[in-house]
């Protein structure tokens, strides 16, 4: 037994390098900054995975909730003076509440209508940001804000933010894994696979659909607030509808409904997105082709297809071993 569990944890050994990455990359502060963005997008994609990957509800409103988190935290900090570290949490809870309220009427909609309502929601949020009452959001010009401070230490440097973000990411990813392995997570999966059957088993499907939206709202809002205080400046383009598709691409590429899919997908697509920044005219083409490729040929994402491949190799080895004996 001991041997098996040792082996099980052995594969996570390379992950131990992550905390040392900023030290290794100390000379390249741009790369450290990218790592900070990776953390933020991993958190958001993790939340999206709970909603889309596990409870099967597609959403085009991720950028909207990201915006609620970002603007929520910035505005609360600006007008009440509450320390940033708390406003991030408050904004995430606010985003969660808005998601719950939004989800209640939405949970009865299915398929195309669900996508329509989330697209409309994203537009409404975008319009509110760009044409806010009294211009409190700075409209199209954006708004500047403070960095995170904790016990008098400011996480202004990307290196220090990285460790703060890493702690948040680990906590949130582990929490998600616990949630998915609980009763609630199993209910999500049951609803995704067959809503009527789930209902027959006594699962109140609307309740769980609303729950999933709440979790999603919290994660995405949290990520949005982190984003605002990492960059120190937010403007509406980050929260436009096309950004919502970027999150969906991250979830698809990593693999829907898996523990590590959002982590892998968020990392890869964010790095790709940054590299594509130099070839702006091909950005949309690459995303379009990437989406189609993953939908048609690799529906399980990198995680799912990787597992299939490993299983194939293993079974082949077993067959070989049997033949030899």
């Amino acid at each position, binding site marked *: 037994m001991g041997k098996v569990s040792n082996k099980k944890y052995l594969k996570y050994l390379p992950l131990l390098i992550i905390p040392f990455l900023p030290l290794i990359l100390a000379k390249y502060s741009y790369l450290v900054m990218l790592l900070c963005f990776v953390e933020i997008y991993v958190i958001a994609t993790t939340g999206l995975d709970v909603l889309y990957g596990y409870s099967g509800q597609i959403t085009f409103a991720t950028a909207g909730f990201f915006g609620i988190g970002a603007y929520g935290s910035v505005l609360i900090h600006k007008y009440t003076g509450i320390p940033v570290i708390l406003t991030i949490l408050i904004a995430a809870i606010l985003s969660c509440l808005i998601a719950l309220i939004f989800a209640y009427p939405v949970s009865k909609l299915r398929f195309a209508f669900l996508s329509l309502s989330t697209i409309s929601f994203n537009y409404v949020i975008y319009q509110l940001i760009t044409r806010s009452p009294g211009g409190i959001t700075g409209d199209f010009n954006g708004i500047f804000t403070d960095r995170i401070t904790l016990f008098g230490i400011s996480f202004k440097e990307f290196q220090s933010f990285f460790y703060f973000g890493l702690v948040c990411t680990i906590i949130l990813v582990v929490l998600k894994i616990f949630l998915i392995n609980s009763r609630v997570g199993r209910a999500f999966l049951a609803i995704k696979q067959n809503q009527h059957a789930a209902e027959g088993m006594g699962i109140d499907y609307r309740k769980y659909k609303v729950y999933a939206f709440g979790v999603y709202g919290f994660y995405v809002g949290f990520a949005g607030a982190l984003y605002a205080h990492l960059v120190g400046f937010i403007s509406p383009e980050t929260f436009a509808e096309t950004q919502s598709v970027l999150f969906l691409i991250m979830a698809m590429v990593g693999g829907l409904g898996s523990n590590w899919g959002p982590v892998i997908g968020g990392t890869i697509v964010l790095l790709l997105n940054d590299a594509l920044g130099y070839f702006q005219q091909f950005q949309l083409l690459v995303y379009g082709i990437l989406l189609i490729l993953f939908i048609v040929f690799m*529906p399980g994402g990198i995680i799912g297809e990787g597992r299939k491949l490993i299983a194939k190799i293993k079974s082949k080895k077993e067959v070989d071993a049997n033949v030899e004996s």
Partner: protein
Amino acid sequence: MFINLLMSALLLGSIYGLIGLGYSLIYRASGIMNLAQGDLMCVGGFLGYTFYSIYKLPIIPSILLTMASTFVIGCILEKFVIRPIFRKSTTTSVIILATVAVSYIIQSLEIVIWGAAPLAVPSFLKTPTVKIFGVIYQTEQLLTIAVALICMFAIHIFMKVSNTGKAMRAAAMDPVAARSCGINVDKTTRITWAISTTVAGLAGIMVGPIYGVTITLGTAMSAKGFASAVVGGYGDMYGAILGGFVISSLESFSAGYISSALKQLIAYATVLFILFVKPRGLLNAESVKD
């Protein structure tokens, strides 16, 4: 003021309605929404520009050629993109995502072929303006409204009277039963897609002289088109046009009487409200079956 706003509402509404018509048709045929509809409209606009302004063809052949090309594009799209995905996976959400991918690919191809700068299409009518009730209008504006109404009736009659139309409706209602009656469901689905892209392309030509053709117009039109389809009653031909007028009136009257900054917000908030309260739209698809 009122007449002006009403006219601009009618004009915008007919364009939204034409896009919404495409959404409804595809929803009827495949049960999904095609988020690339607005970009297909832009393709129509660009093709119209190419035939009319670059090749200097007369207007009628330009329009016919554009419609023929968008028809073919619709067939290709259905056969080589949508159908393989349909075969692979059963979840609608994935297919909707695939249409977003299609919209991205169309947009980048448009940039490669026609460039990113907006194109101004010259007016294609001999009398560019007409005066009604003391207000001057572009003739294309009136033409667009007429085209939208004609398309609505034509498609409705086509669906109701012609054999192909009947087959299309049957295939949409129950593919298995339709197949057992000898209907070629694959073919009818393809024709439906082709017709809806043709309608979008037609809208594109009409938009050209009025607003000019830009790539970004596509995304905005996709959104407005689906909004009108939802408001009117998703899957209903008359509903799509009606919804188009509802959305455009909301936009232009709130811009005129409240504030132009709020017009988008009001339009989308209304869509959300209708989805929450009456997801079947104003014309209930059940009660107005054609």
